[in-house]
């Protein structure tokens, strides 16, 4: 299986730039107005996950939780043999026990997972996550600048931030819950995204060695050729990693559902951005270096 037809990725990328910018803007709007749907990991409170041996209805559950002496109404999400109860305040150990007792009364085989986080701790987690992203970016810029050149580093970082941001934006738009594993997923996506981009850049760098590219057209052909040469690999790898993440999403444990979902979205965008964002962006940066004066206005 090979692509025999020459595809003009650079040309196509113009449409994808628009697409990416549109999602980014939509994401920014949603983030600014709605923010993210934080789980207890980032917002103090208690999260109770219960595995049940039978289905319980809201009508059964609500009165049972009424007399626990907890002032706020919890958010309750019912699933197949499963229920998630979320409190905005931290449950103390007595309330913990009372809640367990109340649910156990409805189903004596219930099994619980209770997570409680203090506000201060949650803020620290979020802060560390942001530091992690920034420092990762810095590390990548340094490494890629040494191994390649700064233009590759810059283009790779743009693609990487793009991928990470789009996942965050999608989570904001669809009000999906952001927990600690989500942060792990975003960091992993950054790892994959850079991995994917580097492979294509590596090929561009290699092709640069053959012959002299004098004009923008030469470089454009070179980028198209490099992307085409690595395209099968990009697709296969995206496919295999996607398979792993996809099965984690549909079959894996409940507590890594959001992680897997973030991974699936991130992987798809990671593969996409390496081809349509990172490589053309490098070309754009390179063009400025090559022809500072007589750049071709028609191609600008």
């Amino acid at each position: 299986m090979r692509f025999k037809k020459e595809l003009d990725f650079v040309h196509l990328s113009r449409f994808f730039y628009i697409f990416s910018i549109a999602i980014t803007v939509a994401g920014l709007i949603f983030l600014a107005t709605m923010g993210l749907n934080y789980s207890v990991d980032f917002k103090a409170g208690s999260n109770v996950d219960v595995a049940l041996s039978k289905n319980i209805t809201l009508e059964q559950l609500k009165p049972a939780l009424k007399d626990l002496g907890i002032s706020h109404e919890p958010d309750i999400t019912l699933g197949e043999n499963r229920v998630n109860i979320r409190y905005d305040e931290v449950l103390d150990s007595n309330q913990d026990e009372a809640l367990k007792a109340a649910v156990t009364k409805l189903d004596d085989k219930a099994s619980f997972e209770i997570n409680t986080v203090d506000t201060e701790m949650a803020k620290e987690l979020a802060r560390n996550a942001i530091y992690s992203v920034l420092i990762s970016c810095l590390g990548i810029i340094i490494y890629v600048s040494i191994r390649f050149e700064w233009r590759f580093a810059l283009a790779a970082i743009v693609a990487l931030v793009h991928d990470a941001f789009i996942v965050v934006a999608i989570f904001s738009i669809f009000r999906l819950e952001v927990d600690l594993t989500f942060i792990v997923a975003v960091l992993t996506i950054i790892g994959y995204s850079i991995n994917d981009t580097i492979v294509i850049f590596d090929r561009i760098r290699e092709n640069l060695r053959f012959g002299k590219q004098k004009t923008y057209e030469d470089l454009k052909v070179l980028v198209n050729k490099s992307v085409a040469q690595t395209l099968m690999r990009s697709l296969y790898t995206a496919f295999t990693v996607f398979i792993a993440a996809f099965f984690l999403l549909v079959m894996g444990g409940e507590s890594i559902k959001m992680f897997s979902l973030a991974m699936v979205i991130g992987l798809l965008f990671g593969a996409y951005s390496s081809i349509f964002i990172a490589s053309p962006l490098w070309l754009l940066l390179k063009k400025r270096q090559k022809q500072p004066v007589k750049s071709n206005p028609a191609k600008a």
Partner: protein
Amino acid sequence: MKRMLSFIITVLVLTGVMVFTTPGLLDKVRLGLDLKGGFEILYHAEPMEAGAELSRASLQKTAESLEKRANALGTSEPEVTTEGTDRIRLKIAGVTDEAEVRKKMKEPAVLTFRSAAPGDPQGTFSKIELVGSDFVEGAAEVQRNNLNQPEISIKIKDKDKFAEITKRLLGKEMAIYLDDQLLGNPPVVRAVLTDGTASISGNYTIDGARELADTINLGALPLKLTEKYSQSVGATLGKQSLDQTIKAGLVGSVIILIFMIGMYRLPGLLASFALILHTWLLIAVFVVADFTLTLPGIAAFILGIGMAVDANIITNERIREEMRNGKSILSSVKAGNKTSFRTVMDANVTTIIVAAVMFAFGTGAVKGFALILIVEIVLSIVTNLYFAHWLLTVLVKAGALKKPKQFGVKESDIRAL
């Protein structure tokens, strides 16, 4: 023939080792609380009195005492670690009465010596004369008195203060409280005690006295603990997560292996072998390094396999490309291995950078995830780069791979040089 032989022997020996050791290794993998049930609490420690210094030693001591307490409650393998300068993480697996354990942990016993304040009814004492931090840390011990009765002796830091109190209370009762509970009958102060040692006597058995001394020692620590984070997972839920996630991993992995073999034929089979070896080595590292497998860890594990596959795909795509350009099989394999090596290294190093940052800044689950990712990438370089390259080169040199078709390359695609 010699090459073929070394190939066969290597593959057979490794397969044998993997088949025989895998069940044992799997049993030895330490599971995290999220997979086997249990609970975890992160405490923030601070001195009892505001403004006091929190020393490394007192934190360590508190952690040890917590561990002792957990052990005393009969829980299995409690894990108590200090984190940073003021945190203690407690992990206990398979607890049935979680509330009791938590209560014992959260409320360190505070020992006070009290006297009756004016207006106190008979038998109650509300004036606190001495508090936990007045006692020498960990100095409570069990002794026997003249009548061979067990008693607990406690040392007081400030001898003069104690002397002053005993002088003032001479002939009066001085009660000893553990939290709000009166210990035994309040003794009457019979002499001015100047050596800074007080003793608690009562009708204790030797075991009872020891337990009390231990409790007092914990209570005498000048650290106050507050829960910052807690997670408790029921055993059933943990098992369910483990089963589901492993099943998901197996299905994903099998599809990946089928894909590799279908796409790359014999080299794909070699790559699959390298992938299985990679997984086996990872499990072995888990056991040897005594890592704890958690749910995010399994996720890292499975996704790492996806990434390891990438190394094989890059190599094999490259070899096919060289072949289509008309190179001979041997030189295609050589050139493909060489050029793909650099690409894979660059790609992996950048991922290691991300993982290292996660490891440095993360806590708990994030740290574990990052560590597994790093180990996995390193193992992947060894198995999917060096080992897979070697396997392929040996087979080609031995003449077992002679046709481009065996690499999944059509003859018609090959360009003449």
